[in-house]
């Protein structure tokens, strides 16, 4: 198949001949009757899984089934933050693996997903919080990631526009990960889609999975809105719809579906350098290359599949933003939207086999699915191809709740809306 190689040189050449040479980023194939591996979910994680299955694990005859359009789930409706600033051994190495994949993603995919390592700062407002962040920063360094403990004076240099004067919860410092930052969310989905398509993966849009077919306790295919498809193995990566899809296989999950709102302002000249996270209210913000301030906060807190939230949370999030940086008062909210997130019972994800042989599950990403996209795809591909968990994702077991090996970064317990 013909693949347009992307480069500045190519762009110039195409410009000079009226852009007639650009080809589709991916095909629109009809689904085949049989595949070796079917990935359910054409979001970031599903597309990345298919890409790595083909690229790294030498698998062929792969399809990705997407009920809407590629990237229509949370990969297209998040706040684009990438980071590896976790505390626990079950998490941090995984997210650091993801960060390393991010750092080479664009060259790997030949697609500019605008990975931008402008840093993330988590603000510290109390001595106890400093102690907790010191423990976390040390965990980051001990896992091979980067971290810096910032004083209030350091912060004044880096982000002078915060309220240092009369804040209800004074800013006393910060924990910074300089390598963290943002990536263009749609670009990530498109880059993986284009890469997977070029490796022969069939990306089938408008194809909803309506059931699973099993034989002797083993998966043998899926029912879809476009007819049955046989498959040797099936991987599920449908965060937000995990409960619904897995219920088709008769499985219940330690997951609740919640709505997380996100916000963007009108375009503004550069004003916020990296990613900032308020430690005393739930608020995080960055500025896109296009100039919009992209921000978010807490989930609404109730179970929802509605992909929209309510006004009190909007007010609460913006109020926190105003308290942190009162200079944004004159900026205007342009758009708000809601994404349905899988809130797991310990705040950490699941990448594991299921009781159904040949059926694999990837979900429970809570707030954090976007940054995990590369490693999630890689680890899920590893699991599906080899049958063994990838070393970085070995803790993301489905049975960890029953066994008491939870990975609870916030110490909130089995209460999803507190994670």
């Amino acid at each position, binding site marked *: 198949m013909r693949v347009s190689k992307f480069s500045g040189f190519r762009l110039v050449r195409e410009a000079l001949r009226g852009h007639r040479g650009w080809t589709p980023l991916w095909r629109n194939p009809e689904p085949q009757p049989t595949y070796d591996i079917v990935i359910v979910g054409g979001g970031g994680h599903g597309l990345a899984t298919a890409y790595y299955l083909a690229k790294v694990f030498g698998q062929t005859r792969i399809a990705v089934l997407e009920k809407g359009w590629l990237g229509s789930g949370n990969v297209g409706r998040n706040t684009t933050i990438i980071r590896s600033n976790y505390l626990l051994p079950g998490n941090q190495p995984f997210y650091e693996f993801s960060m390393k994949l991010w750092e080479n993603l664009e060259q790997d995919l030949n697609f500019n997903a605008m990975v931008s390592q402008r840093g993330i700062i988590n603000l510290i407002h109390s001595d106890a919080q400093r102690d907790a962040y010191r423990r976390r920063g040390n965990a980051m360094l001990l896992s091979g990631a980067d971290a810096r403990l910032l004083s209030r004076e350091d912060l004044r240099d880096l982000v002078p526009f915060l309220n240092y004067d009369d804040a209800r919860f004074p800013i006393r410092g910060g924990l910074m990960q300089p390598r963290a930052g943002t990536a263009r969310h749609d670009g990530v989905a498109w880059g993986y889609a284009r890469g997977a398509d070029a490796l022969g993966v069939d990306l089938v849009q408008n194809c909803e999975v309506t059931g699973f077919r099993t034989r002797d306790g083993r998966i043998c295919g899926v029912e879809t809105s476009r007819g049955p498809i046989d498959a040797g193995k099936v991987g599920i990566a449908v965060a937000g719809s995990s409960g619904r899809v897995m219920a088709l296989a008769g499985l219940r*999950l330690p997951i609740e579906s919640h709505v997380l709102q996100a916000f963007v302002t009108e375009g503004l000249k550069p004003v916020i350098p990296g990613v900032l996270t308020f430690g005393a209210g739930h608020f995080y913000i960055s500025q896109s290359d296009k100039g919009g301030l992209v921000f978010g906060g807490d989930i609404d807190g109730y179970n929802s599949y509605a992909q929209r939230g309510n006004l009190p949370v909007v007010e609460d999030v913006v109020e926190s933003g105003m308290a942190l940086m009162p200079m944004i008062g004159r900026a205007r909210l342009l758009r708000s939207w809601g994404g349905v997130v899988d809130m797991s019972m310990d705040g950490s994800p699941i990448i594991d086999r299921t009781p159904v042989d040949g059926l694999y599950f990837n979900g429970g990403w809570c707030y954090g699915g976007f940054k995990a996209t590369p490693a999630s795809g890689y680890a899920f591909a590893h699991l599906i191809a080899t049958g063994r968990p990838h070393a970085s994702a070995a803790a993301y077991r489905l049975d960890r709740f029953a066994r008491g090996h939870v990975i609870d970064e916030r110490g909130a317990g089995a209460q999803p809306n507190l994670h």
Partner: protein
Amino acid sequence: MLIPHPLLGPRDAQEFTYLGDARLLARPDGMAEGAEAAFYDYVYLRNNPAGVHRELWFHEHGDRSWLVVTRDTLTHDILGAELATDVVRRERPR
């Protein structure tokens, strides 16, 4: 959102705190055989339907009642609300 409090009428959802699946009313007996498996189910496997959901809300900034609210998670429509004590007494007669 407005929560139709059975005693107080429609009230701003901001007066409430959300807990989740009303199955949490049915706490297993901790002294019974097989309690650990029953508790795993109770603590971790909540109903999470895309549709009608029975769920617990606490009237934190109100009369401190726990309510069982029946709400559609696809539309957010609320189909009813009851005092949790009434539900427990009805569904778990002693």
